[in-house]
């Protein structure tokens, strides 16, 4: 192995978050922004999974034939896996709401450009009157 698996996945989640931040802030298309946000979320999720990783560890389910002390020293840490499931669900629901809002706005304005959709509208309202 060229690189430690845990280090490799930590670097990956760092990359994912940086790419996501870049997309969310500098790309104008709203859908691409949302994809960037999904990247950030997945980066964090990967980080949590990586915390629980143990080189050469076993799945944290205790079976009848296992010796408890052997299991305690060899099983991966199960808490992060439990947490990451919840956080994936939350990420999916926020993503769904954002996409739904984008659909409504696209029907209203016919564009996906964030500069057009989400600019400061208070001045425009004054100009209308």
């Amino acid at each position, binding site marked *: 192995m060229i690189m430690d698996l845990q280090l490799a996945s930590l670097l990956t989640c760092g990359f994912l978050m940086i790419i996501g931040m870049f997309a969310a802030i500098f790309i104008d298309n709203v859908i691409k922004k949302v994809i960037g946000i999904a990247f950030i979320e997945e980066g964090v999720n990967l980080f949590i999974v990586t915390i629980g990783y143990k080189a050469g560890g076993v799945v944290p389910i205790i079976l009848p034939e296992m010796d408890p002390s052997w299991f305690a020293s060899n099983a991966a840490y199960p808490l992060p896996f439990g947490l990451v499931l919840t956080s994936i669900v939350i990420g999916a629901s926020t993503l769904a*709401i954002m996409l739904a809002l984008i659909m409504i706005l696209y029907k209203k304005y016919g564009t996906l450009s964030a500069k057009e959709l*989400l600019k400061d509208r208070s001045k425009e309202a004054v100009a209308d009157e």
Partner: protein
Amino acid sequence: MNELIPLMVIFPIAAALLINLFGFKSTFVKYISIIVAFIIPIIPLASNFGLHYFGGHAPLESSLSGILYHTAITYSFTAFEQLFIFILGILGFFVVLIYVNSYKKASGPYLFLLFMGIAAVSALILSDDIFHMFVFFEIAAIVQVGIVAASTIKDRYEIALKYMIVGSIGSPIILLGIAFLLAIFGNVNITDIVNMINAGFPAASSPVFFASLALIFFGWLYTAGLPPFHTAKSGIYSGAEPQGAALLQAFSVITMVSILIAMVRIFSGLEIFNVILVAFSLLAMILSITMALVQTDFKRMIAFLAVGELGFIGLGMGIGTELSMTAGLFQAVNEMVITALLFIGFGAIAVVCKTTDINKLGGLISDYPKTAIMVLIGGFAMAGVPPLNGFQSKLMLVQSALNAGYPEFAIIIVLISIATFVVFVKVFYLMFLKTKPKALEVSGEKIPKSTIITLAVFLIICITLGLFPSIATDTISGFVGGLL
């Protein structure tokens, strides 16, 4: 009855799901939601104080270090939580009452959002588990967006999407901070983490611990709507219906307070924590008040004031003495009631006049004298005029700042209070006292009785807390004593 502790969260969630299910039957939904909203504030009064372990998993004692480890999600319910959940329940009841009364057809999904939000923030303040807090904080954030998207304000979808995108940067960051804590301590229970730090856990002084402070603090800025999130947060308040905004700000206050208390418990050993807390609170106060002064939309003005007042809470907690923390938390209780009063009072005017532009209003005191007077007293309470509750908490804050040796903070608090008063007098003058512009057509629509009753009840709470602050401060100072 300790069994009632989880019910404070489960009951509103179950009711919300039921109401959503029967959303098509308008009258049924109306009655059910009034009953549910009436029961919610009773549960915390009926419940006993104590701890609740979900699944019945009691804490285990480590054979190596002798530290107790909480294996279950733990809810801790004391008089402090009782106070906050009770006030939230009262606000929720009146918001539901106004909503049910002012619309012919009650919308099931909207009431679902209101109850879900109440459940989420109750869980936030009860929980002793930082990941559990994150989950409910996300639910509260989605509820806030939903309440805005369900309103009838013109740019609601834009406002909601903006808040959501900005928040989507904030919430993964707070999750990353929690993940750092998990990586250091192998645990997400706050009591366990605090015990490990007190037992001299070596990693508690590592750079990773500082990094987790920075990340969680950033996420907290998003929950509270302190700068740089204050524009998005005030947009959310002004984008919601008035009664929705009243509840939204209560959600923000409780979310802010509960995550702040968690941070104080975990990070109070790091001195940089108090420095950044005070710095961002002062920034929030200054930026929000100055922005409120230059707005022309009066809902936005109140929204900015609501954000700025949160800075007082952070400042009180940041100074870090027992008196100042009590004052900060007392300010949180007061602010929930006062801001709700202002949102509902001014919102009622916005509904009958169909505009929120301050320059198009005027002379409304002859049309709505009752509302005008009650809103006036509410504004006095926010600016800190005796004998109202805002005065008591701000006076305590000033005293605590002086006692702690920071007279500059006391001066800033007084200056900001004066500016708040100016904002308020300006709005009141332009709306009620100025000669009526010819273009303004008051449709003769009456303000609903439910709104007037709500305002009166909130005012009574304000005056009671102002005359007898010890009702709240005794509870809070007992809690703060346990915190330090």
